[in-house]
């Protein structure tokens, strides 16, 4: 097994083109445990952290650009980023432990394609766009289109995520991410729920609801969003009927599995609960920020 640390996207592309057994990594917080667990070692490890663009965080012209290998600890302590996307920041901050936070990244979390990835629901809820290095350039796709199933992505051989871009949220927007784990940290989500809402006057004008760990990939739930849009938040809280409809839509969107971490029935039930609670937090943030 060889190791390479390219300094540019182009160098990385060349290394990957030369070796079809190569594997990119950022923090290696998934890669190393997977190798320890018996997954065959790649012939070449390509370390992306040395590429400046992959660890750069910029905010220009109404758009945020986050290098795909940026340690999540840098995102959670970036006050402006966290103010703009509190739900994404809290999702990113839940990956692993404090030590892991210094190595884990949005790009790695998405490309690992775990249905339970904590940063992914809010990445999608905030309409994150993934800039992907191809063999000879880049292409941009919605983050929602990268993972296609557990451990599977739409990335072709030799492709890797360079960065994510996000438009500044409209005025009166808030997001939130909640997950269910039996412990308080160092665990994998049994259910995750990200909600983003925009409040215009006393009503929700726009909403996105994304669930994690309840289907082969994170799932966008338009019916749950529709249950929120147009409802009143005049008294500072979600309308009861809207909250119930949201929870029911979230439950209906679940396609979970029974496994050692949770049952189908439990995941479905808690998906509704967390969607409702995340929506309430998102509404509060939207109103406070507005």
């Amino acid at each position, binding site marked *: 097994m060889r190791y390479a640390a390219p300094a540019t996207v182009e160098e990385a592309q060349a290394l990957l083109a030369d070796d079809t057994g190569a594997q990119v990594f950022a923090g290696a917080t998934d890669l190393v445990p997977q190798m320890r667990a018996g997954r065959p070692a790649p012939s070449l490890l390509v370390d992306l952290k040395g590429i400046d663009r992959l660890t750069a965080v910029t905010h220009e012209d109404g758009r945020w650009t986050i290098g795909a290998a940026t340690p999540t600890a840098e995102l959670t302590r970036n006050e402006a980023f966290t103010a703009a996307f509190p739900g994404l920041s809290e999702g990113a901050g839940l990956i692993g432990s404090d030590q892991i936070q210094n190595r884990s990244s949005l790009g790695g979390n998405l490309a690992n394609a775990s249905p339970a990835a904590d940063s992914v629901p809010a990445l999608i809820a905030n309409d994150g766009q993934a800039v992907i290095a191809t063999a000879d350039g880049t292409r941009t796709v919605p983050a929602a289109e990268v993972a296609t199933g557990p451990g599977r992505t739409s990335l072709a051989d030799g492709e890797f995520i360079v960065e994510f871009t996000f438009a500044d949220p409209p005025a009166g927007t808030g997001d939130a991410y909640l997950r*269910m784990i*039996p*412990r*308080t*940290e*160092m*665990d*994998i989500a049994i259910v995750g729920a990200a909600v983003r809402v925009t409040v215009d006057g006393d009503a929700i004008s726009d909403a996105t609801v994304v669930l994690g760990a309840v289907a082969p990939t994170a799932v966008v739930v338009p019916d749950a969003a529709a249950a929120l849009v147009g409802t009143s938040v005049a008294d500072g809280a979600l309308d009861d009927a809207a909250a119930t409809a949201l929870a029911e839509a979230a439950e209906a969107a679940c396609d979970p599995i029974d*496994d*050692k*971490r*949770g*049952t189908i*029935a*439990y995941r479905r*039930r*808690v998906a509704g*609960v967390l969607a409702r609670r995340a929506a309430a937090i998102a509404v509060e943030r939207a109103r406070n920020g507005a």
Partner: protein
Amino acid sequence: MTVTENRPDYKWVGTRPIRHDGYDKVVGKARFAADRNSPGQLHGAFLRSPHGHARILSVDTSAAEAMSGVKAVVTGADFPDLPIGHPERDTAVNLMARDVAMYVGHVVAAVAASTRAEAEAAAAAIEVEYELLPVVLSLDESIADGAPLANADNRTAFSGSDDPSNLATVTPLERGDVDAAFEAADVVVEREFDTAWVHQGYIEPHACVVDVGADGKAEVWASSQGHFRVRSQAAAVLGWDTARIKVIPAEIGGGFGGKTTIYLEPVAARLSEKSGRPVKIVMTRDEVLRATGPAPASKSRIRIAATNDGELTAIDGWIGYAVGCTGDMAGFVGAMSVASYKFPNLKMEFVGALTNTPRSAAYRAPSAPQAAFAIESVIDEIAQALDTDPIELRLKNAVVEGDLTSMGGPHPRIGFVECLEAIRDSEHYQSPVPDGAARGIGTGFWFNIGEQSSATVNLNEDGTATVITGSPDIGGSRASMALMAAEELGLDVHRITPVVADTESVGFTDVTEGSRATFATGMAVVNACRDLVGELKARAATIRGVEVDAVAWVDGAAVVDGHDPLPLADITAKAKSTGGPLTVTASLNAGGAGPSFAVHCCDVSVDEETGRVEVLRYTTAQDAGTAIHPSYVEGQMQGGTAQGIGWALNEEYVYADDGTMLNASFLDYRVPVASDLPMIETIIVEVPNPAHPYGVRGVGETGIVPPMGTIANAVSRASGVRLTSLPMSPPKVLAALDDR
């Protein structure tokens, strides 16, 4: 906080010096077994059974032996076939299957190779032909009529029968007239309970390095709770004289009972013997969880009768333990652990039954937590039914000196009432229950044991001392030994070096179990020091030219009327001219280990929509007799509680139907993380044990007995529904809430 009764004015005992091994452990200099590397060493790896129960028809190691780097391969045929009934047969069969693999993960063969990767590859290349046998995976399956045998070699202990059986032990207890008591009762509560298999969860995986020389002698570096037991078990399994084996104790990274038996050393020894090279074996976490420990799963039915004025008049019930694939004393030991309340009428049966799961191992007060969970839950429900304070109900029925233990003998002086009063009077219990929360009370005890220990105390030329024992330092015992020696000798604790010596450098010492190290090994140290003081007085008499009766030992000096005190260092300086080196060895088989009782109090909240339990506040009061080093007493109380909280809330083995463990990692076997726990508040209660020179009671095990009942009682009061199944994981709690 400490609650003390009649305590003498000690100078060193009860203080909190920095532990003697602290520096090494903080800077990473302490050597654990996996830190040992010997020149030319090989690495061992195992082939483990993929089947829950299977006859081994053939093992073909030829392909493995031909592979790169492979130096030796061993199978069950490389070990003597110890007869049924031999005390170490189960140990032998468990560490290397002979004819039958009895659980998924049971070792079938082992390889030593130049690298771990080569050893693993070769182990995977060993071809085994199996004939599948029925898998017995639960207590119910094991005790069912006509159940297939989990282990055809098992005989029910103490039964006198030579028939194969799934029953390891059956222990009935009876006193009084239970039927009449239930007939006359004002209140009767009956419940069924179950608990899951749980692992001790020590951070350090099992590890050893074994070097067998051409002369046939073996040096073993091992992490264990008792290196003399490693030696005796390895000798039995290998069929060797004990004198061939020297075991050098590595530091231990947690044991909690799980390192009172061996898994690796005889295999490494045979591989080393065959290859002529030292062999190192280090388990992975996956192997630790699949093939070591755990504590038995249990099911129980408990019925308790009470009068309206709160007298608990009778208990009857059944407690069964699923003990894994070999005979085990869990059921028998469980029977000894039901002795906290007077219960004039009692009829109980305790059963241990075999399953095709890993051989169970001791875990801190083995078998008591499962029983206490059930009994403390029913008692709490009686308190609710009588609308009485749960501590007052227990105070009314708590055993005191002279009351019967479950086995019939009287309790010695114990501190159960004092612990109940300490919690009752605590700031925690006296404060209001927080909004949205509920409070639970639970109790437990462990009877503790004494057993054999040795200690040698050497006085050095300059008046410093070395205290040598054979008890590995699991919970701060070096500091405790040094403190007791300091008190006896009148010497500063940091002028004493406590040492844990190998099997050739100190007298025989039993394994650290039954919370015995500070009690029994400490008593050996005290005895040695007292003999040494006698010798010091004799030397002082020689120096002063007086009769020895005229010499007193006061605060580290020999005092003779009319002379200046003669400090210890002045006597050691003259050792050569007064009779030679000052060294004493003491050995004993300690009796009188005093039971340690504990009472716990916790506040919890329950998320009614997700079933998640949060422990908000937790206080424990425990009788330490006398706390030699209070920090390590508190550490034991807190550690046992933390493990009990894990047992209560989230820890469980998850098995597939074929017996494969599905959650063999710390990611999915959910021990509590630091942020799951509040600060565990401690109240050390000191009711001195009259059988120990300083009043010590072992404190290592009791702390894990009360938490499951304590938390279940709090959760039940918070949710309005009685929780009877461990762990109280969120899905189970939510289901219970739905059933209200």
